[in-house]
């Protein structure tokens, strides 16, 4: 198989990993030698027609696998062609793409071949060759095999910017059913060990000493959960994310809507979940991390453990907690303003800056291009007071429900295309 055919196969097999982030690592550049730079901000070098960012060369080392996870296109029993890159081929491809400014770096994952240790060693060899033999300073994300030997995990962290282990499914019951070879305790153990290494390296970097601190995955670790391959509800999913953020200080949890795969196992649902569900989970995740919401509050916006598909989770929460509104735009503290639907963190900070000078009016919000239809019912300003009874009216939900372009495009029936 020639290089192009391999690339087609092994990129195709890698696309079910949603992450393509290249942000949050240490600053490096090539003025003192080497090739490449990282300046903190991730860069999306292209977008595919699926709307996803292409930042990294995201491929598998091989799509052969001794595991038989039902949801995975590369499972042992799947009837697909198999291929494997050599270390040299991957290094050459990464450098050729990087030099042309196609990518920020490499995201390398793999099926498990022979053993976990063997597979992990192969992934590490690619990263080490890029760094040591070619002075590569771009971004490297390595998928980590949870039950590989501890010294291999330690070496992976030396070369990689980010490491990730996929939790795959939100409940242990589903993991047992769909991915019988995967071991949840082992996954947690490895995440815990990575988080220990990451914290230690951070601490060492802060402590002035003559010895260079041990480098370990400066962009931290992330994970991915598949949405809609089992019967877990959003409560399970967000609960699992919340626990992972707390326990292991993960940088990100990615949600990957289950995508139909060829030769699907009979254990899987026949249709994908609506793309909108994945989108609402990302919004909820955002509220969890940056807006001071807890999972109970977020779920209270929906019904029966599921988020409201029609409304973004902050709006859904606000509609069920109308008693605390309207908030005075010029007096409410920052934490309270962050809970107003339609007000993002950046605009909240602009409002705080502006009201130190003079009082802020609804007209000012219009200039900041805040979605007034969503915001207005929930705030008081010198030039605005919600219409009498508006906050208590049954019609408020309909009134604020402005279908965004995305929500329109991601409607389940439209997703089905012409299948």
């Amino acid at each position: 198989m020639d290089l192009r055919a391999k690339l087609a196969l092994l990129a195709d097999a890698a696309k079910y990993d949603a992450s393509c982030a290249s942000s949050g690592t240490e600053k490096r550049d090539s003025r003192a030698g080497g090739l490449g730079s990282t300046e903190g901000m991730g860069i999306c070098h292209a977008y595919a027609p699926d709307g996803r960012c292409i930042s990294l060369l995201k491929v598998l080392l091989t799509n052969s696998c001794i595991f038989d996870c039902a949801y995975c296109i590369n499972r042992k029993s799947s009837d697909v062609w198999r291929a494997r890159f050599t270390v040299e081929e991957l290094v050459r491809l990464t450098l050729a793409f990087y030099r042309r400014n196609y990518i920020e770096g490499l995201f390398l994952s793999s099926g498990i071949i022979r053993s976990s240790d063997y597979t992990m060693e192969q992934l590490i060899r690619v990263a080490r060759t890029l760094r040591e033999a070619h002075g590569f300073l771009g971004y490297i994300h390595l998928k980590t095999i949870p039950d590989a030997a501890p010294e291999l995990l330690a070496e992976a962290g030396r070369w990689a910017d980010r490491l990730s282990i996929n939790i795959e499914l939100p409940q242990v019951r589903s993991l047992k059913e769909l991915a019988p070879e995967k071991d949840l305790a082992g996954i947690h153990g490895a995440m815990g060990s990575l988080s220990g290494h990451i914290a230690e390296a951070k601490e060492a970097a802060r402590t002035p000493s003559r010895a260079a601190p041990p480098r370990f995955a400066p962009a931290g670790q992330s994970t991915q959960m598949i949405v809609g391959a089992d019967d877990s509800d959003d409560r399970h999913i967000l609960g699992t994310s919340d626990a992972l953020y707390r326990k292991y200080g993960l940088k990100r949890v990615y949600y990957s809507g289950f995508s139909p795969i060829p030769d699907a196992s009979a254990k899987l649902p026949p249709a994908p979940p609506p793309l909108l569900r994945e989108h609402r989970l990302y919004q909820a995740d955002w509220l969890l991390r940056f807006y001071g919401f807890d999972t109970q509050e977020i779920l209270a916006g929906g019904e029966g453990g599921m988020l409201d598909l029609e409304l973004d989770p902050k709006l859904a929460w606000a509609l069920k907690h109308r008693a605390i509104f309207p908030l005075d735009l010029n007096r409410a503290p920052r934490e309270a303003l962050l809970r107003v639907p339609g007000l993002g963190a950046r605009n909240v900070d602009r409002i705080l800056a502006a009201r130190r000078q003079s009082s802020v009016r609804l007209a000012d919000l219009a200039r900041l291009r805040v979605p007034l239809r969503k915001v207005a019912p929930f705030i008081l300003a010198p030039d605005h007071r919600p219409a009498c009874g508006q906050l208590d009216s049954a019609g408020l939900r309909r009134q604020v429900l402005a279908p965004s372009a995305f929500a329109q495009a991601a409607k389940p029936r439209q997703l089905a295309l012409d299948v």
Partner: protein
Amino acid sequence: MFSVTLESPADFVGWREAARGLLTAGIPPEAVSWHSPAEPPGLFAGAPPPAAAGRSRIPAVPRDFLDIAACAVRHSDPERFALLYGLLWDARAAPGLLRTPTEPRMVRLEAMARAVRRDAHKMHAFLRFREIGTEAGPRSVAWYEPEHHIVEAEAGFFQRRFAALRWSILTPRRCAHWDGEALHFTEGARRGDAPAADAAEDLWLTYFASIFNPARLKPAAMRAEMPKKYWKNLPEARIIPALMQGASGRVRAMLGQEPGAAGRRSRYGE
């Protein structure tokens, strides 16, 4: 009437010096017109402004404002320098002005700075080098069309990233060149001056086609981040229509409703 002609279209230092002189001399914004080599004064150009002498009467300016201003002067809007000077002038009487992000002119300035930052970010993202052989060895050459005056400001990004290469970035208004030692800049070029092909593009297109998931077609999301105006300089963009047309057929194949499962075929060009 006074005319200020700056050294380049994004000459922030020159603007600041001139503004200092004008403020000290008490010359109001409506008596000044601003120019650069790209925006020359017309027939009735005014006198050059007085040099800043003696005690400067420039008001204390917040750090944030200077950062935004340094960015906004790269905008292609011919009113950028006048907008900034007008703000400085009014800030003498109303010192809170420059700290009020909701004030209409501050909103406009912030929007200009944001547009410039986005333009820079898209240049880092969407510029594509093509490698050619020269007598002095390989050279990477890119053709790119930024919207604003950002080539000088962003050349450093490519220098830090590709210090080991020899490269040229050609754009309609300004070109940047790196020879391994120093950056230098030349006048604008034409698209035909850049190479038309590259040996790695075929692999890149293969990757682009393969990493795309046809079960999740979201062209509006793609266009929001990669508007069509960039497509003519992106080699991969030429296969987007084909990928989108093929999408539903590939979804069917993936669902097993059509012979020939998706995973068995290479996606592009075969």
